[in-house]
């Protein structure tokens, strides 16, 4: 085992410094050192997407990044995105559409959806949303509700339309 090394980075807008073992993944650092347990680990090999976080504006697998690699970067977890209201529309759309069951994949889904909506300027098609979510494993929902929810949020963001709940109700989805 190698001696701990100091790391400093900005997590959810706050600078944090800790001593960590070099083998500590960013996911474990967030979960155990910072107690930000919204970032989940489902496979620890970048296949399931439960650990996705925003790193300097890009969605990355926190299980494939070592904490020491994140030194100096800006990390945003689901907690940070939620608290600053960046994903309020997605959260509302997921809630109304019941686009989650056990909720374990949900933080990763929200990060992927947020990253998608940040980079497009028109409402993506269902195929494009399914494609964007293709690295996020959900065992509970069947994905369709998630695609519906992302579509609804995209309509709000890209078209400045109705709030997602209203948009969904317009489409006949009863909360």
């Amino acid at each position, binding site marked *: 085992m190698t001696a701990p090394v100091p790391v400093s980075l900005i997590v959810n807008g706050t600078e944090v410094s800790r001593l960590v073992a070099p083998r500590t993944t960013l996911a474990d650092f967030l979960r155990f050192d910072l107690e930000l*347990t919204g970032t989940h680990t489902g496979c620890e090999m970048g296949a399931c997407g439960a650990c996705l976080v925003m790193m300097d504006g890009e969605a990355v697998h926190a299980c494939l990044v070592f904490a020491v690699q994140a030194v100096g970067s800006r990390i945003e977890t689901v907690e940070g995105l939620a608290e600053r209201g960046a994903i309020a529309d997605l959260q509302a759309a997921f809630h109304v559409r019941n686009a989650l069951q056990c909720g374990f994949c949900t933080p990763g889904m929200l990060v992927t959806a947020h990253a998608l909506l940040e980079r497009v300027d028109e409402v993506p098609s269902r195929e494009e949303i399914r494609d964007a979510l293709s690295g996020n*494993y959900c065992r*509970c929902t069947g994905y*369709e509700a998630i695609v519906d929810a992302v579509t609804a949020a995209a309509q709000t963001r890209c078209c400045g339309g109705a709030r997602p709940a209203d948009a969904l109700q317009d489409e006949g989805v009863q909360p």
Partner: protein
Amino acid sequence: MPRPNAKRLLAGRGRYVTDITLPRMLHAAFVRCPFAHARIFSVNADAARAAPGVRLVATGADLARICTPWVGTLDHFKGMKSPPQLPLPVDIAVWAGQAVVAVVADTRALAEDAAELVEIEFEELPAVTDLDMAQEPGGAKVSAVLPDNMCFRAGLDNGNVDELFASAAHVVEGDFTFGRHTGVTLEPRAIIADYDPSEERLTVHHATQTPYQFQDLYSRHYGIPESRVRVVAPDVGGSFGIKLHVYHEDMAVVGLSILLGRPVKFAADRTEAFVSDIHARDHRVKARAAVGADGTLLAFQVEDETAIGAFSTYPRTSAVEGNQVIRLIGAPYRLKGYQADLKVLFQNKVQTSQYRAVGHPIACAVTERLVDLAAEKTGLDPFAIRARNLIPDDAYPCTSATGYQFERLSHEACLSKLKALMDYDRLRADQAEARARGVHRGIGIAAFVEITNPSPAFYGVGGARISAQDGAILKITPSGEVRCLISVTEQGQGTEAIIGQIVADHLGVPQTAIRVITGDTEVTPHGGATWACRGAGIGGETALQAAKKLKGQVLALAGTILQANGEDLDLRDGEVVDRANGQPRISLAEVARIAYFRSDTLPKGTDAQLTAAHHFAPQGYPFAFTNGIHGSHVEVDVETGLVKILKHFVVEDCGRIINPLLVEEQVRGGVVQGLGAAFFEECRYDEAGQLTNGSLADYLVPMSCEMPDILIDHVETPTADTELGAKGCGEAGTAAASAAALNAVNDALSPFGAAISQIPMTPARLLKALGTI
């Protein structure tokens, strides 16, 4: 009505066992057997014990001293046998990946480091790795303490099958193979055992569906009084039947905590999950059907062999699936004759056991494929042959050829709804047009019957301490809000939402004023919790009756306060009102304030109860059967063997629907698990019994881009056994999805004279069926 707990999960504020850290908590890692079958000669753990942060290294013998063994049999399965099990093996390991030695250290990483220093000397023994080897006379045995590899054998025969086959115009048959797959819950299994020696009290935070069952098991096997064992199941990251079995590591972790007097956590990593979570299915079925000249189904004859691994799971056993396969085959149809033979066999692999829709997908695929073959033989359309043979909607109550008692099902209504939902004639026209262009689409349908609301006839009669009843305690708080403690548990399916809804409706308070609490044996009443689709049907009825009881108490008390007759009052939206005209009389909060703080103002002898408890177990039919039918539309690329699932359709009848949003998501999620089994998911072993695809990079799970949109429609036939009328729906999606897909793929292959009868239908298997490879 969206779920009240969803906002928390959407904010990253879920609290799963994997997230929980307790003061002075230690972490366990396990050294696992590298062989499918091996004698443990010696364990040298000196280096591991000396490694940094290590607090304990324990072997099978260490835990055997404090834990009594368990045997996975049920009394009502006559002749069933299984070897005794312990947390860790003492002398022989029986599958590759079985935990052999436990290491407890300050962190999981340190425990893993030390685990690598444990030296175990194994002698490899002959391994039984397939169904044929398991039945070889004089061949290798999985257990030295049993006479052979037969766990359980059962048969069904209603007497006249030979005659019906002899007189049939046609006989259709098939040999079916169903691969092993597994639950792959996104949150792997996780447990924290916390034994406090000062009070001789055990608290277990456990990602489980069935906390009460584990309270009983930890109490009995570790000799701790039940009242001193508390099992807490907080947020659970997926379960699907995976998280209600006894796992060796979980029992070990309880023992490790007892030995150390400190909290010990174990969260399986994904590789550990693949080699130690229960697997499911693994059946080989030979089946044939006798068919009349006009397409009437006369009789079925079935042989099912299923390989369950090295032990039968405890306490539910690994024989339930095979038993349900032979009882569910043919269930939607009128049959004159039925004969079945079931063999449940041990082999040197991890245990198989109950996973979502136990036995249903196998029974459904066999049945529905035979029905399609019969249709082909008699020149009938798949809808027409089913219309001819499904049990008619006016034939109930009736008993199936295999002995199931059906209260009332709706196959005919579902069949006609599916035809409309699929726009069947248009799909057939599209298929013909596409075929002309060399594009091969297929349409398949599959009817199903799903077992829900199980009575004590399921496990209780077999001697298992698994509750068929559920309990609810409803309390009015001093502010006039409602706390509902209920034994059914939440894993994301929406239990808390529907229980809140039912209480709101039947008590007469807004749902926002109700707090539903689940998953803590110290707080909630005892009950069966979540398995076999019983949450809405049994848990919901429990909540309904408790709500009515509490409403009676509130109105009686309000009557005393108002000097009115309680029967003339009603509780609506949190207000006591005149029943006749809805005029508000007194708020619930005011009734509560008087009851709790000013009982001195009430007449002497007033019974100021604002808490009601109710327990309920099914007493009518042994099961409430749900039914329905699936349709699958696929496109097979005959060059590559790849299948694109174009659309999936479901019509289901789960009785009274409490919350359509939750029902539809349950069905969709279930369909996707069924489609995973049909096309992707398989635990593959080599000849030596090694799992060769134990990671999410090698084991394919359905992802969003491969899954279709799923259209759902409903028929509602409430059960008359309960006031609520709800049946289960959680397994309806999984039960028939793979069968419909199998029929759809075979329909697409039909121009080539090719057919497939094995799932998953991988590209290689499809190309083999096509004769390409």
